[in-house]
C-alpha cells in the first residue's frame, strides 16, 4: 500500500515536471515565433521610414505615380544605373545583379568584364512588402559587403617551404583542377541584407547534399542568433535575402573577383 502510494507520488511529480517542461518549451517556441515574425515587419518599417518619398505632393510625384508600374520600372532602371556609376568609382571588381534580365555581371571601373545568366532567383518578401519607391531608393546605392560565408576559400593559397639546397628541390607539380568543389556563398551587407549565391546542382546528388548542409548551417546560425537575442532581450534584426543560382564556375569567379569588403548592386 505504501509502495503503491510512493510510486503514485513519483509518477505524479514526473508528469508535473514534464508538464512544466512542455509549458516552458511552448512559451519559448511561441516567443521565438513572435519575435521572428515581427522582425521582418520592423525591417520593412525601417526601410520605408528611411527611403520613402517625402517631397511635396504638388512636385509631380503623387501617390498614384509612385505606384504606377511603368514609373517604378523606369525608376528601378535609373536606380540600378546610379548604383553602378557609384561603384565604377572604386578600383576593385564589383558585382551587379540584374534580375529583370537575369544576368550577373562582374564590373571593373564601369566595364563589364564578365557576365553570366542567373538560373533561379528568390527574393525576401521585404522587397515586395516595402513601399516600391522606398525599396528602389534603397537599391540606388550599392550594397557594401561586411561579412561572407563560403564553402571555398577566397584565395586558394598553398603553403610551400623553399628547399634548403638543390637536393631538396622538387619540380613544380601541376595543380589538380579536376577535383570537384561545391561553391555556395553568402554575402552579408553593412545595411543588413544578404545575397546568397548557390551553385546550380543539375540534379547531382552530392551537389544537392552540399547545398542542403550549407543551407542548414545558415539556418542554424540564424536560429542561434534569434535565441541569443531572446536571451539578451534585444530585438533581432531581420536580414532580407536575395537568393540566386548560377553555374558553379561563375559563383567561384564572382566570389574570387570581388574583394572581402566589395560592393554589389541589384535591380529587381
Amino acid at each position, binding site marked *: 500500500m505504501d509502495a503503491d502510494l510512493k510510486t503514485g507520488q513519483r509518477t505524479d511529480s514526473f508528469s508535473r515536471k514534464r508538464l512544466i517542461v512542455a509549458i516552458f518549451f511552448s512559451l519559448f517556441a511561441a516567443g*521565438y*515565433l513572435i519575435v*521572428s515574425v515581427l522582425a*521582418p*515587419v520592423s525591417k520593412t518599417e525601417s526601410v520605408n521610414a528611411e527611403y520613402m518619398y517625402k517631397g511635396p505632393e504638388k512636385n509631380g510625384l503623387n501617390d*498614384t*505615380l509612385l505606384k*504606377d*508600374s*511603368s*514609373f517604378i520600372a*523606369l*525608376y528601378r*532602371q*535609373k536606380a540600378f*544605373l546610379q548604383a553602378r*556609376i557609384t561603384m*565604377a568609382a572604386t578600383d*576593385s*571588381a564589383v558585382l551587379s545583379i540584374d534580375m529583370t534580365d537575369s544576368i550577373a555581371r*562582374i564590373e571593373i*571601373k*564601369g*566595364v*563589364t*568584364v*564578365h557576365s553570366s545568366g542567373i538560373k533561379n532567383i528568390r527574393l525576401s*518578401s521585404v522587397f*515586395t*512588402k*516595402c513601399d*516600391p519607391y522606398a525599396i528602389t531608393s534603397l537599391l540606388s546605392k550599392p550594397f557594401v559587403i561586411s561579412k561572407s560565408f563560403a564553402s571555398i576559400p577566397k*584565395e*586558394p*593559397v*598553398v*603553403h*610551400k*617551404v*623553399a*628547399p*634548403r*639546397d*638543390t637536393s*631538396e*628541390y622538387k619540380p*613544380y607539380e*601541376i*595543380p589538380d*583542377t579536376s577535383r570537384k568543389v561545391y561553391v555556395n556563398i553568402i554575402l552579408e551587407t553593412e545595411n543588413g541584407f544578404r545575397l546568397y549565391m548557390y551553385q546550380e546542382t543539375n540534379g547531382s546528388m552530392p551537389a544537392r547534399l552540399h547545398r542542403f548542409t550549407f543551407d*542548414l548551417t545558415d*539556418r*542554424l546560425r*540564424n*536560429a542561434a542568433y534569434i535565441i541569443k537575442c531572446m536571451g539578451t532581450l534585444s530585438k533581432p534584426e531581420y536580414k532580407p535575402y536575395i537568393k540566386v543560382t548560377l553555374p558553379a*564556375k561563375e559563383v*567561384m*569567379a564572382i566570389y*574570387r*573577383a570581388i574583394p572581402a569588403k566589395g560592393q554589389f548592386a541589384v535591380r529587381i
Partner: protein
Amino acid sequence: MNNDQNNGHPESSGRSFSESELVQMLSGIFRSVTGNRIVRKTVAITLRVLLILFSFTAVTGFFLYLVPAIQDNGRKTTYVSPETGNYSFIKDHKREIAKLNAEIRNLSGKYQSYTPFSYLVINTTENKFRLYQNRKMVREGYCSSGSYIRLVTPEGSREWVFKTPKGRFTIQQKIVKPLWVKPDWAFIEEGLPVPPADDESRYEWGVLGDYAMSLGDGYLIHGTLYERYMGMPVTHGCVRLNDEDLEAVFNSLTIGSRVYIF
C-alpha cells in the same frame, strides 16, 4: 463437378483460412509477442526512439524551416498598371515618365563611356583571356595566372605569395624579345644561393617569349616555354599567353591600353 465450379472463381481457390481462423491466429501471435518480455522491451524502445526522432524533426523543422517560411508571408504591394484597366492617371504621369527616360539616357551614356575601345580581360579563376577591339570581342583563349603559392624561406625570414593582382591596369611598356632578370625567389624556390643583384646568372633570354607587356610593379603579360600549362594557375604572378595569342594581343594593344584582371 466441384473442380468445374472452382475454375470460374480463382479467388476462392487460394483461400485456406476462414475469417475467424485468421483472427484467432493473429491474436495468438499478438499474445505470444506481448507475452515475451524481450520482444515487448524491444518494441517499447523502438517506439521511444521513433518518438524522439519525430519530436526532434518536428522541433528542428519548426525553428529552421516553418518559422522562416512564416516570416516570408504577408501582404505584398499592389501596383497600378495599364493592365489593371485603370488608364485615367496614365496621361498625368507622361511628363514624369519622359523626364525619367531622359535621365536614364544620360546615365546610360555616362556608363557606356567608361568602356574603352580596345582592352584585355583576364579571368584568373578560369585562366582565360578575352581581347576586345572596338568594344567587340575579337579573340579569346587560355592563359596562365598566379599559382597562389606562398613560398617561405626555410628560416621563415622571407615570403612571397605568387598571385596575379586584380583590378584595372594600363600597359606601361611594350617589349620585343624580353630579357628575364631573375628575382631572388627564382633562386630560393630551387634551393640555389641568391647571387648579387647584377650577377650574370640573373639574366635569361628567351624564357618570356617574343613579346612582353608591362603592367607595372614587375608584373608582365608574356610568353612561355611551358604552353602545356595554359589554363592552369602556375605563374609567379605574371600572365602567360601562348605564342600566337601573345602576338595578337601585343599587336592589338598600345601603351596606355587597359587590362582588366579579375
